């Protein structure tokens, strides 16, 4: 009983790739195993944990609940696509690093994609809105405290009004902010 294969094009992080897949192949598996984009993680395969969240035409979607064949003609963004052209971290990534918003890092790609989409819709979330933004994703390690901080910090970093002076103020207020030692 050999399976019928479908030759499809998937556009991921601005690059179009051709793959041959059975119709039942999940988008999460296609991204990870066929395209080698292992940044997208699978924590439950039933749509609850959010680890597999990718952006489909800019909207957060659970890649474990979508077949790869139904993602043709869409623009997919995975965690790999959140890094800036020059290789530096995007604002949400940067904020998670600064705020210690991750431990094992397994849930992190799903949080990063989700928060990226949410901040596009609402760039200035209140504290409660920041919590709301991550309320659909599970993290078993961090207890969420620093993830919420990271959402608020990401909003600051992504804010076009945000300049260096503001940055200094931020550092002044938080005298116990992490020491920045970067490779």
């Amino acid at each position, binding site marked *: 009983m050999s399976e019928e294969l479908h030759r499809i094009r998937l556009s991921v992080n601005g690059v179009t790739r051709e793959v041959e897949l059975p119709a039942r192949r999940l988008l999460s*598996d296609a991204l990870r*195993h066929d395209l080698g984009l292992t940044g997208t*993680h699978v924590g439950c395969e039933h749509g609850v944990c959010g680890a597999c969240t990718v952006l489909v035409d800019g909207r957060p979607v659970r890649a474990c609940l979508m077949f790869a064949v139904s993602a043709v003609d869409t623009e997919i963004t995975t965690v790999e696509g959140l890094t800036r052209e020059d290789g530096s971290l995007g604002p949400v990534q940067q904020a998670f*690093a600064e705020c*210690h918003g991750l431990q094992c890092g397994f849930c992190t790609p799903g949080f990063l994609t989700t928060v990226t989409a949410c901040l596009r819709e609402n760039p200035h979330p209140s504290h409660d809105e920041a*919590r709301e933004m991550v309320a659909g994703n599970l993290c078993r*390690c961090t*207890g*969420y405290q620093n993830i919420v901080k990271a959402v608020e910090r990401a909003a600051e970093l992504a804010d076009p009004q945000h300049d260096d002076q503001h940055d200094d103020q931020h550092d002044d207020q938080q005298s116990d902010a992490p020491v920045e030692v970067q490779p």
Partner: protein
Amino acid sequence: MTTKLMGQKVQRTEDQRFLRGQGRYVDDVHAHPTTLHAAVLRSPHAHARIVDIDVSDVLDVEGVHVVWTYEDLGPLSPEMAEPLPLLIPHPDLTQGRTQYALARDEVNYVGEAVAFVVAEDRYIAEDALDRIQVTWEVLPAVVGIEASRAAEHLVHEDVPGNVGARSEQNTGDVEAALARAPHRLQLELDIERSACTPLEGRGTVARWDADTNRLQVWTSTQTSTGVRAAVAVKLGLDLGQVDVITPDVGGGFGVKVMHPWPEELLVPLAARLLGRTVKFTEDRREHFISSAHERGQVQHIDVGFDDEGRILGLDVMFWHDHGAYTPYGLIVPIITSTQLLGPYKPEVYRVVFESIYTNTVIVTPYRGAGRPQGCFAMERTMDKIAAYLGKDRTEVRAANFIQPDEFPFDQGLIFQDGRELEYDSGDYPASLEKLKRLIGWDEFPALREKMAAEGRTVGIGLACYVEGTGVGPYEGAHVHIETSGKVKVATGLTTQGQGHATVFAQLVADELGVRFEDVEVVTGDTRRMPYAVGTFASRAAVMSGSAIHLAAKRAKEKALRIAADALEVDEADLEIVDGVVQVKGSPSTRLDLGTVAVLSNPLRYAFDEASKAATQFAVGDPGKPPVAEDDEPGLEGKDFYSPQRATFASGMHAAIVETDPDTAEVTILHYAVVHDCGHLINPMIVEGQIHGGVAQGIGGALYERMAYDSSGQLLNASFMDFLMPYVTEIPDGIDIDHLETPSPLNPLGIKGAGEAGVIPVSAVVAAAIEDAEGFPITAMPISPSDLHTLRQEHTS
């Protein structure tokens, strides 16, 4: 190096990888189409005999390479046909039992591995599983502690009364102490099963290299060396033929301490047989039904005390549900039985436990490992004594504390590592003072009144614990300074998100005097450090941290010796600053550490500029051998750290909760933690560990339970039904204060911090709900419907 990094909130280096999607978890290894994938047929019954297994249809499925049942294992490797190892034997475990890699003729829990398939992809492997026909003779299932104790049916025919072990420790004549005590109380306390539930399940990848006759195994484990030894034994290979590499691990919390898992043996066996890379990645349902659980205990306490609430006699009996097999021995109940005492010193203590069989998934340590149950027992007892005497709950605790001048304090018991239960250091009265301030203990009555005026019901609770951390036997480390000046550090224990790459680099940078960013740390790779134990029991910082510190010291000593020789100065006059060896006070006389590394290794051949400078014609005294008799080439330091006994971290938590009068929903309004893990290496990481621990504790207190039905089916084996807390269930803000009583047992004065956050949460939340509602809370977790039922019982 201007500032010392120990104690600083240094940002994590590993995050750069994780944030870019470049983490390497096991399922990311060999993620390409030539890799084969395994799937496991699991028992649908909690207790059944296998009458027949028919696999004749399976190999017809296109893309299937292998299908194995128990019968196939012996011919491939005789050791594979033997039961899996009983990892930690104990003399009291008289009826230890372990399962087979694939069930032989009987299954004892839903989820037990029965057959194994390898195919082109996981989809096809699962199709193949559907074609396996098993004829079962279903037997009565024993589910839960009550049924196990009643022993109407037996889990293992040859284990009378379902009792795997009975164990007792005491520090004197408890009956006499109880009889003498002016006051006496009894308590019955239940804690249900829960599970670690890391977001990444288990996974194993293996590749056999026929050219070198070696096996490479990647596995999501907390102990690479443990898996390596198990694989070598079971596959009949020399240890030297097996490499185990643990890449990034997406959370462990205990469940990935190896037993070993059947798949960790079957995948390498298949890889060797097929000559192809084989991968197994557990799915979420499999994780629920075939990976370990913990916590289920029923506990009975009999306590005698004086008018001050001082405990004169404490008599504890408990029953520990260890599931269908005992691969991890008695570690969990031994920890409960010893760590239950917490920061207190009852005059006489006796504890008896029975570790009993049920037809449910095996039990192995889950973050906190037996301590949440013990803490629940002891702290509920303290609350009950306070209520009985009409005293403040903090006063009764203070009356029982071990005092700061009493350390080291010997509790007179034997701990899980077979050593005396002797606390190294602590200051419990100071912790309590801090906690009372942090939560606003003395101001709470006013808050309660104010809330009551608004029609709101609130309660406050606290709980104290002591945690034996940093258990032995040892860890080691290897520090290698390259000719580039970069420092490569290897330690054998693994990493599951604790930031080891960062904290260990901090220690090396401090000790060696190099730039933090020049240090790279590798963990859990047996090729780099073949002797190691593993990451569990809050032991990484203490054990590997100390070993790394000692190894860096050795590398430094060697660097200074070589540099002193080259610069013709006294060693004592040298220091290392930012990777440069220089004369103190005269920094122009200097040598890069990289150059020292060049000098340390007299070469025959010149490969590049650095090696040109290191040829035997350039290095050393022609009147002496190029490598002196008592020396070795290379700029390296290696050392091991092996402590006499465990360190003892401690802490206290408190919470204010609100209970809804209609829905009986419990909301945590304020949560406070005072924590003492000795000196902190990186407070940001320690606080992260506390946050995560408290969240897991809240899950255990209010939401998580393993809902087995009476036939042994787990009814909530998905994230839809097993309620793990989202951000919405965790209080907004957890207040933390630290106390640092350094441990005298290791060179850094540290104690472990990984598990502490989770230990007292159930006790704290139960106390706060009890305080709010005015009736006793004796079983956790507690759901709104449980609370509602209790309300009805207590009003009627």
